[in-house]
């Protein structure tokens, strides 16, 4: 069983953290992952920076620009991660845009992911139909789960289609937005969370976009298996670096 699938079976709400690889400093990647695990994080999304991240807001774009400036590339990242499985056992998901993956070669990229111990991929600009027709077989060959995003505008038919070809979790984007652009959840969002929960999908849901503190984390996980924090974490490491991540995760988990 894939590490993500095993984690999803645990009887707890999952805290997942997104960070940009190579940020704030090029060699912070491994330290960030290790410290997040030590501080009780359940799952990590490692962001492979891209020059033109369409689905991201200013915080993640700025961190991506800095990471690229620091020298981060697909090759550098895989090299940094080559021994990660000696020290880290929680699920690791690579999140990146399609073009860098395409240039690396989709199959070579997937193979490399398997070698270093990546469990899944989130590629926001790889549409589900293209994945299904062209890449699903390759992902599966290398034991990688592909995570699909849904939004409040995604139709039920489409959600069920994604659910049918997914073996991990569904990433629920909390509202029509880019990353980092929300604060707090209103009724519209909780209604949407409820609506999706009531669909009783095969894949559990994890909510992302707009989760920044204990309150939003608790709200989201009332309706979903877990929640993902990105921009708020980037803001934290921008200010405090990656050595003491407990100061970020402790208030988040315990209020």
């Amino acid at each position, binding site marked *: 069983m894939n590490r993500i699938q095993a984690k999803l079976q645990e009887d707890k709400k999952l805290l997942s953290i997104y960070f940009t690889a190579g940020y704030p400093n090029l060699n912070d990647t491994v330290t960030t992952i290790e410290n997040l695990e030590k501080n009780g994080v359940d799952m990590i999304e490692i962001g492979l920076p891209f020059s*033109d991240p*369409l*689905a991201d807001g200013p915080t993640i774009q700025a961190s991506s620009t800095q990471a690229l400036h620091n020298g981060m590339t697909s090759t550098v990242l895989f090299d940094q991660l080559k021994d990660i499985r000696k020290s880290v056992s929680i699920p690791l998901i690579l999140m990146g845009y399609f*073009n860098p993956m395409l240039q690396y070669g989709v199959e070579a990229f997937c193979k490399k992911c398997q070698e270093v111990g990546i469990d899944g991929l989130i590629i926001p600009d790889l549409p589900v139909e293209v994945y299904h027709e062209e890449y699903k077989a390759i992902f599966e060959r290398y034991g990688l789960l592909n995570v699909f995003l849904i939004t409040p505008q995604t139709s039920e038919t489409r959600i069920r289609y994604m659910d049918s070809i997914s073996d991990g979790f569904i990433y629920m984007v909390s509202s*029509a*937005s*880019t990353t980092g652009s929300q604060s707090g959840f209103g009724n519209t969002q909780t209604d949407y969370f409820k609506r999706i929960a009531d669909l009783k999908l095969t894949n559990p849901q994890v909510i992302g976009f707009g989760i920044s503190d204990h309150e939003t984390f608790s709200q989201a996980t009332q309706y979903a298996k877990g929640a993902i924090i990105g921009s708020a974490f980037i803001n934290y490491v921008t200010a405090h670096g990656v050595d003491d991540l407990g100061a970020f995760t402790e208030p988040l988990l315990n209020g």
Partner: protein
Amino acid sequence: MSYHVNEKGYYGQFGGAFIPEMLYPNVEELRQKYLKVMAEPDFKKEFDQLLKDYVGRPTPLYFATRLSAKYNTKIYLKREDLCHTGAHKINNTIGQILMAKKLKKKRIIAETGAGQHGVATATVCALAGLECIVYMGEIDIARQAPNVARMKMLGAEVRPALSGSRTLKDATNEAIRDWINNPVDTHYIIGSAVGPHPYPDMVARFQSVVSEETKWQLKEVEGRENPDYVVACVGGGSNAAGAYYHYLNEPDVKLIAVEAAGKGIYTGESAATSVLGKEGVIHGSKTLLMQTTDGQITEPYSISAGLDYPGVGPMHAHLYETKRAEFISVTDDEAMTAGLELSQLEGIIPAIETSHALAIFEDKKFKPEDVVVISLSGRGDKDLNTYIDYFKL
């Protein structure tokens, strides 16, 4: 072989809709409706009427006597520079604003580089009474002040793109983000033949009036609809898409696409995508684009802001790949010289984008009986400062 888009939104291996799920409903709505809406009689009637009475179509197909004499061939200029707002861009924005109204959208967003598409969008928003927000790179805002003023005067809000390189590609990113954040009431008017399907095809269809007119105009003067060559400059590719459209499947018509070589193709300051680009995904489309080996999109350079785009529309990538069109690169210097030459031989000051298309005659030779149609895509008013600086006028 077909050079038009297929059912799945591809031109050969290029095109598609590589968009985040957040954009899916917007793009899908457009995909399902655009052909149907464009075929509605009242839509066609209003579009044609506005092109005639508001834009000033048909634009002349002008036989350039002195230019033809100089290069010893028959050169016709398709005068898109005479369109309202000074370039072909308005053909597309008129079409898209009518589309937006049909889709009951209340708010229009657009990206712009030099400001021509921004002005064309602000213009049609004023015409339709719709809210207009134009994203423009912070650097472009500084260097294109007159067009920024025009957009403001037309009632548009110009929002600076502060991310990345703060130019056209970043303005496009910001417009896409706006659309993600406003999925229900907003229509995004893309200005070039780029972006996710159906945009490249929709833009090409709205621009296709250019070659539609060329056909009957040429028939009147030359007794034949088909020229030997159609020449157009290519940044994203909207004017070329329009100039080629009705000739794509006419094998006797040779197509020439002129790209900006900037300071020279291999100087690191160039926008010659067909030479320097590799297949990849930019702004929702699989096409040729300039990028690092790691797949990061690089910043192009051209003296002409309208050709300063790191990708090229998927239709053109396909025309390049299949060799249906010949791609030629022209440097800043060659383009500026050709712009000055047209001004003094024909009394027409062209946009610097267009000057690139005019520059091919120095190297490429034509037969005296060849009929060469050049898409004179825009006028040079907006570029006066660049011409002044370059020629020390």
